């Protein structure tokens, strides 16, 4: 016998269910007056540095239908590639950019839109630069454990070609993570299953 490691086990995940809005975007679903605003509704302060962009996300089920009850969160670096987090010790992040956003998908169209800035490049754990990307996390009825994926930018072909994470994905699936640009808007369709299933990460 040896000493016990005495580690705890992570609390098991359970689905967010159909009423996730009540807890996480109460103003969106008509519960007003409890919180002044839904957390994560605004990511960018007036003085934030960087290119203003919109990121339009849909989450599409195995029947090809966009989820109208999903909750989507994004997390990204600022324009200089620094995260606004104590765990990023490389320098001060832009104080006018929080880096985290949360939206419910629209109950009619299934879309949600994040108004943000284009992130800078962040190093991989071996120091090589990753291409600019946004981490996306999805919770919804029918999803038993939150899904992590990444959105890369369609107009960053050169950086994407050198990205160490995209390089691990067999073609053509890497394309599932690259959002095409139209004007100032990037559109990211996340497919939960089927021929075009998006790559999800165990991170």
């Amino acid at each position, binding site marked *: 016998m040896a000493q016990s490691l005495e*580690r*705890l*086990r*992570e*609390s*098991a995940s*359970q*689905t*967010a269910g159909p*009423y*996730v*809005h*009540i*807890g*996480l975007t*109460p103003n969106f679903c*008509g*519960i007003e*007056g*409890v*919180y002044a605003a839904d957390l994560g509704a605004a990511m960018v302060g007036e003085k934030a540095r960087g290119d203003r962009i919109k990121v339009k996300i849909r989450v599409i*089920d*195995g*029947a090809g239908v966009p*989820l109208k009850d999903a909750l989507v969160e994004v*997390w990204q*670096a600022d324009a200089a590639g620094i*995260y606004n*987090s*104590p*765990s990023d010790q490389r320098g001060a*992040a832009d*104080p006018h950019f*929080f*880096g985290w956003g949360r939206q419910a998908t629209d*109950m009619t169209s299934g879309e949600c839109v994040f108004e943000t800035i284009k992130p800078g490049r962040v190093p*991989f*754990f071996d120091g090589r630069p*990753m291409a600019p*990307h946004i*981490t996306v*996390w999805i919770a*919804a009825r*029918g*999803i*038993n*454990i*939150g899904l*992590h994926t*990444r959105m890369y930018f369609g107009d960053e072909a050169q950086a994407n070609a050198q990205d160490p994470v995209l390089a*691990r994905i067999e073609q053509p699936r890497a394309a599932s993570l690259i959002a095409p640009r139209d004007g100032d808007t990037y559109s990211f369709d996340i497919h*939960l*299953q089927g021929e075009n*299933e*998006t*790559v*999800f*990460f*165990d*991170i």
Partner: protein
Amino acid sequence: MTGKNPPSNLRPETGAFFQRDRAWHPPAFTPGYKSSVLRSPRRPLLSLDNTLSEITGPVFGHDILGELDDDLIYNFAAPGKAAIGPRIIVHGRVLDERGVGVGGALLEVWQANAGGRYRHRRETYLAPLDPNFGGCGRTITAEDGSYCFRTVQPGPYPWPNGPNDWRPAHIHFSVMGHGFAQRLITQMYFEGDPMIWKCPIVRTIGDPKAVEGLTAALDMQATIPMDARAYKFDIVLRGRRSTLFENRREGN
């Protein structure tokens, strides 16, 4: 929101998180819970050691909280009114797998009212709304990871899955720790509820010990006499690896 200012005097941790035990969590595809069928990825997840994008995460300061955010009995009620139902305190700690308290974690909760009815436009259960109950609350853990809120015990409710499926009484929890890889949504159940083991959503979890880990214990030492009973619910997030011996060059 505090951004770079850590929630305590402790030096921020920068290590990668312990690998998630996917066999402990429910799998994506669980046909007994019908909604998962068309919403479950079928291909293997891509395993990736954490990069800065996962090691970091947003941190929230107490300045985002309103006075009644942690009190669901009063935070939606008209002046002088209160939500109807068994009054309870829910308290506990947010820890990580190393047993370390996670301070500054954002906890957001939502639940049905005492009759099992949610305040939501898609809700169809015939039990009535409580005009003084909204169903949401939030708090941020203290430095030792402890938290507390007050609410009414939610009722069980029927839901469209099988012909006669009922959810056990439960409170939904969303947890934000220190890194985005720790992001977790789960549900709290109540000790002694015979509905727990009949529920297709509970049964997406394979190991009964994992379900016990989501079942809050009646805690008579934490009650408020003549006011509210108490349930204790600890939440465990992924632990972090030490960075003590990482990136240390020869001779340093």
